[in-house]
């Protein structure tokens, strides 16, 4: 178990763009030791005993919320789930007010999912509690990217030098963005593949290659991360039709024949079978989709542990300064 981590000083985990390579590697390394914990017969450690974690979800999510809940419980933290209907938020209290109210309940960590990009950044600025971003709009979903990278490392040994393709709606995907930041920082070669209207402006400046040819994206790739196509969110001016998308971008056994034999097929879930990936591939030998789910717990335990430890340090330091000042005042 890693106990002291001078390399991790952030009270929050908001995204991978702002992290250094060392910080990302520390997260992954810490997750490795927690992976060992959850593989034991007794899957629980007392690391966060007495701490309270609130899952504050403004968007419906079962998978990520449950993963965080399991992770927090494995660390012996108390967990409270709050789901807020986002459409009613405008009439009610502001996000900052909600956050401050939760903090007033003496909560240590808020795990937040929000449909607005930047929401976690704003909350973190306004609260002393730790914030873990569980997905904000199209911006970042750091723990998803970390569990993707953890899975890659576990399966292939290293990340440096790997060829990873991300296929799907890059423009509206926080999973894609976080993966791009994390993978490029760790030295992987990333290719993004989507119909032109789903490639966001200037994405090549992150250092990724861009293609609209699925065969090109699969060729030589060590792994392909298949994004969920959210056709229900089709509010854009230009969006491909479902069947047309599968025909041109769907990951099928036929297409994989032209790829590396051991190419890893990843997916953040939930899968749309027959939309972005065929059933035989999703359930096939190349798929690591369920292992990703297991690894998600280890990675989220690492995130909860590291921010909690860092914030304890920050808060102690601040109260220390305060106490000192008070003493001076008494004199």
């Amino acid at each position: 178990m890693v106990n002291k981590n001078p390399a991790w000083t952030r009270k929050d985990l908001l995204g991978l763009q702002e992290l250094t390579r060392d910080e990302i590697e520390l997260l992954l390394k810490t997750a490795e030791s927690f992976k060992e914990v959850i593989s034991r017969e007794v899957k629980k450690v007392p690391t966060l005993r007495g701490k309270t974690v609130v899952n504050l979800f403004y968007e419906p999510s079962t998978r990520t919320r449950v993963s965080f809940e399991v992770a927090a419980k494995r660390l012996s933290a108390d967990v409270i789930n709050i789901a807020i209907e986002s459409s009613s938020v405008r009439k009610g209290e502001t996000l900052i007010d909600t956050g401050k109210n939760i903090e007033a309940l003496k909560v240590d960590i808020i795990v937040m999912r929000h449909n607005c990009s930047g929401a976690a950044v704003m909350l973190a600025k306004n609260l002393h509690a730790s914030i873990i971003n569980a997905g904000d709009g199209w911006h970042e979903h750091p723990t998803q990217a970390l569990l993707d990278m953890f899975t890659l490392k576990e399966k292939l040994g290293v990340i440096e030098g790997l060829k990873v393709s991300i296929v799907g709606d890059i423009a509206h995907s926080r999973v894609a963005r976080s993966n791009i930041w994390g993978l490029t920082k760790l030295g992987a070669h990333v290719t993004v593949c989507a119909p032109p209207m789903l490639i966001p402006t200037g994405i090549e400046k992150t250092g990724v290659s861009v293609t609209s040819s699925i065969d090109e994206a699969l060729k030589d790739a060590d792994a392909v991360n298949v994004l969920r196509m959210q056709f229900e969110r089709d509010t854009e001016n230009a969006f491909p039709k479902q069947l047309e998308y599968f025909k041109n971008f769907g990951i099928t056994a036929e297409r994989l024949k032209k790829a590396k034999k051991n190419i890893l097929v990843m997916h953040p879930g939930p899968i749309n079978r027959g939309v972005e990936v065929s059933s035989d591939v999703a359930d096939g030998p190349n798929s690591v989709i369920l292992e990703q789910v297991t690894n998600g717990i280890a990675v989220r335990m690492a995130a909860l542990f590291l921010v909690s430890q860092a914030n304890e340090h920050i808060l102690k330091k601040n109260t220390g300064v305060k106490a000192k000042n008070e003493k001076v005042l008494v004199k």
Partner: protein
Amino acid sequence: MSILIKNGRVIDPGGNIDAVLDILVEDGRISKVAKDITVPAKDMIDASGKIVMPGLVDMHVHLREPGREDKETVSSGSMAAIRGGVTSLLAMPNTTPAIDSAENIRLLKKIIQKTANCNVFIAGSITSGRNGCRLVDVVSLKKEGVLAITDDGSSVDSEEVMSEALKNANKEKLLVISHCEDRSLANGGVMNLGYISTQLGLRGISNGSEYKRVARDIELAQKTGAAIHIAHISCRESVELVAAAKKKGLHVSAEAAPHHFALCDEELMSYDTNLKMNPPLRSKDDVAAIRQGLTDGTIDAIASDHAPHTENEKEIEFDRAEFGVIGLETELAVSITELVDKGLLSWLELAKRLSFNPSRILGINKGTLSAGSDADIIIIDPSKEWKVAAEGLVSKSKNSAFLGRTLKGVVEYTICAGKVVYQQP
């Protein structure tokens, strides 16, 4: 009532003067500008080492009254104006009710008469209730004294309606100010479309949503022969279109807001909602084009687009926060810091952009210090620096894009109609 301003560096864009002179103010007017005036005056101001120039004429201000007095009022907004060296402003008509009838203008005029701290001029709307459909009665608006019509805050989407509006305005010799934005192209965006919006995961607004409408409105101005003023231009293509229109000799003028020549979209990496406005902060290249446009005269005027919003409307998620920033108290200092200090504009040219040109566009007798003109004068310390802080702002709203930034140039005196209305404490 007389004031003698001694030994200041007088910048008079009306007479193309930049020289150390004295100015005598009597009965609300400038009575004499010369070296070593010795006439006894009731008040004397030693302006040695200071800049003396015409008060700013800000042709784009949202005072929010009537209707949203929680954001700003005529009183608080005009107080912010004189603190920032603005002695005349044009109040935008997107209030509740909109300034779309003689009756509503009279209501606003009453408020102005009772509470304004500087000259407040009125713009009427182009369409009734700013709905983009039914044209206002320009004849009665003109009679009540509006200087221009505009649906600012929104663009008139219908080409037919805009064309008719320009024709009617032209008959009355009334200026039309156009907020250029094609909302179908803006695509519900909240910031500039580009690599920064991609990184932040925010929906982007393309340059095209602005310049395609600029192109349409210039074309309509040409067809109808009417005068058109393009509000708050923010991108390179718009500057190029205005330059081309001017070359053709069309009656086209344009303004830019300080945030559009001082800040670019890279500032938004912190999701600061005080940097959210419409049009949005653009790319570095666009900022360079706006600066170039100001230097070469393509852009006639600097106007703040002062748009106050309460903390409740700003301290929320970026997507949901209101568009707009305040600017009356910072526009002069931002202009000095970004344009004069960096050698892009001389003081004389700056005074043209801030005072003289907007006065000519609006057809008012301001923006000059020639003998006989209205005594709207500011005296500024050009080298003194100050830090923009919310506590220091007198506007009811504190949503400044420049909070925390250090600017150069402090207003020491604001004289409006021959009276010292503001003196730096």
